[in-house]
């Protein structure tokens, strides 16, 4: 991460993640949320779900990670928002994309405030987009000098 490409229109490097049932069980434990929709075949069959449902809030974690990885330890997330469009199921792969929409002096710090617009899509084996999981989404990040 160099910060050299922090400019309006710059694309944030994609973050792709296959979310396995094992990941989901770990997430359920880490968040103290053991809802059966995330792992229980009997519950899922009764409710008509085709598979274990990924907890949507994990996409917030991925969007934050994507930005923090790009901007490095000088970056501090100020805001993050996301709306869910479609469910994601165990074993599917998601791709987080983001683009810089504004860069301005940080009114509350000595650096810059970077605004991005993001999307999370479910992708197929060749990287093709299958459906949108999250949109719109966005964040503001303070980057200290």
């Amino acid at each position, binding site marked *: 991460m160099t910060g050299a490409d922090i400019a309006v229109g710059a694309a944030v490097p994609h973050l792709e*993640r296959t979310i396995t049932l094992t*990941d989901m069980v*770990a*997430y359920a*434990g*880490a*968040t*103290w*949320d*053991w*809802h*059966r*929709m995330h792992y*229980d075949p009997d*519950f899922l069959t009764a409710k008509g779900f085709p598979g274990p449902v990924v*907890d*949507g*809030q*994990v996409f*917030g*974690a*991925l969007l*934050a*990670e994507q930005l*923090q*990885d790009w901007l490095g*330890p*000088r970056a*501090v*997330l*100020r*805001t*993050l*928002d*996301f*709306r*869910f469009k479609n469910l994601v199921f165990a074993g599917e792969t998601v791709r987080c994309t983001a683009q810089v929409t504004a860069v301005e002096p940080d009114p509350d710090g000595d650096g810059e405030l970077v605004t991005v617009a993001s999307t999370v899509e479910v992708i197929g084996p060749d990287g093709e987009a299958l459906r949108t999981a999250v949109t719109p989404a966005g964040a503001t990040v303070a980057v*200290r000098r």
Partner: protein
Amino acid sequence: MSALLTDALRARIGERAVYTAPEPLGRAAIRYYAVAVGDDNPLYTDRSYARDHGYEDVIAPPTLLAETNQYVLGCPDGDGYLGHSWHLDVPHTRAVRGGNAYEFGKPAGPDTIVTATWTITDMTERTTSRGVPMLIVTSEARYTDQHGELLLTNVETLIHTALGGER
């Protein structure tokens, strides 16, 4: 005329629920969450690295507080859910999450003892593009530490959509 937003529901706008964690967040909880979401940022696990970058200790990944139910005392319900719920009675609807909007304050750390204050801030009835009634419930959760410092504000929407387009 409201199909879903009854007077009884409307009367609950402004209702508040407060939870205080029985223990500090803890170093293990921070590392566990980072491992679970696949985030290897050393700010969350390496104290000396965190100190080199201006923090007193490791910090929690920013979204952890909004996602963990650690602050809730008690046992999971029959579906395995432990987290906050308003238990709203909206008959003949299916509830889905709409989204979240976070504003981050001071980063949480291992010694943080979280208090989460949830408030129902709005209920609005609308119709879907197919004319199906839906009730949008907006809640705000404010997370503070044991010193009263604001860590996070989480605005969450829950959408109750009428089943079959009728009550």
